[in-house]
């Protein structure tokens, strides 16, 4: 089973990476981490890649890390289909000060357009 995790650098996407790394350690799924430009994130690509590599190294996890340029939702869906991924995983949504879950535009696009299973990791 091939799993594609999109990481844009928001806190929920970083948390999704930690949980997904733990998940593939249990299941043995093949994980690809796609670093994307999330308009909701304050971190740039280099910072995101640094965090991703650190988390993977800490867990001693085996995953491919890729930079995916362009519109993040569209490119993730395209990549999942062209390379026969079984599932796209994304962050579970940011929390407002009140604690309300807020789904971002990337998550919404992927949910509505992907032909694979989509997981919002919480």
């Amino acid at each position, binding site marked *: 089973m091939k799993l594609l995790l999109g990481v844009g650098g928001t806190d929920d996407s970083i948390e999704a990476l930690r949980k997904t790394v733990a998940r593939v350690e249990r299941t043995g799924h093949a994980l690809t981490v796609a670093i994307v430009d999330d308009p*909701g994130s*304050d971190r740039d690509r280099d910072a995101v890649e640094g965090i991703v590599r650190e988390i993977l190294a800490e867990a001693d996890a085996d995953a491919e890390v890729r930079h995916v340029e362009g519109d993040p939702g569209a490119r993730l869906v395209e990549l999942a289909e062209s390379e026969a991924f079984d599932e796209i995983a994304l962050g579970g949504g940011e929390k*407002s000060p*009140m604690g*309300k*879950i*807020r*789904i971002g*535009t990337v998550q919404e696009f992927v949910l509505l357009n992907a032909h694979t299973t989509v997981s919002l990791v919480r």
Partner: protein
Amino acid sequence: MTRDRRYPDEPAGPFEPPPITVEDREGREIELRAHRGDPDEREALVDMYVAFDPADRAQGIPPSGESRIRSWLDAILAEECLNVLAWHDEGVVGHATLVPDRDAYELAIFVLQAYQGAGIGTQLIQALLGHGEREGVEKVWLTVERWNRRAVGLYEKIGFETCGSESFELEMALRLADAPER
């Protein structure tokens, strides 16, 4: 989150601050009071959320289970937040809150199922905004699920304007006037 939000140019209100006693459309006497940290009041609020129907959850809140409810309330009953409770027969039947978010406040409101549709929500939000005005709050925003037309209608009636709808939820904003002399 780093979203820029547009607030209406014209302030809404003024709104009457609590305490206020109103009669709802079912003839029940409802008392609206600011909550200032009293522990018994807090327990009554926990009871309301323990009894809350999960079907009326909005974007994950209120959480279910007493321990999650308590830790959520720890955050929104903190000193810098503004809270108004609706009381009937010694129990809390509604709760509205303003939680600080940089230069603005996020608003949310919950009314116990048996008390919905009786006009309490409108009165409770107005009382909260009156409380906010009194405490110097200028900008208020909220999110609401797009399909929740009843809530959107209520917020519009009070003066909220839609300022973002790029996702499943709608974002609405309101500006408060300077507190009137009383």
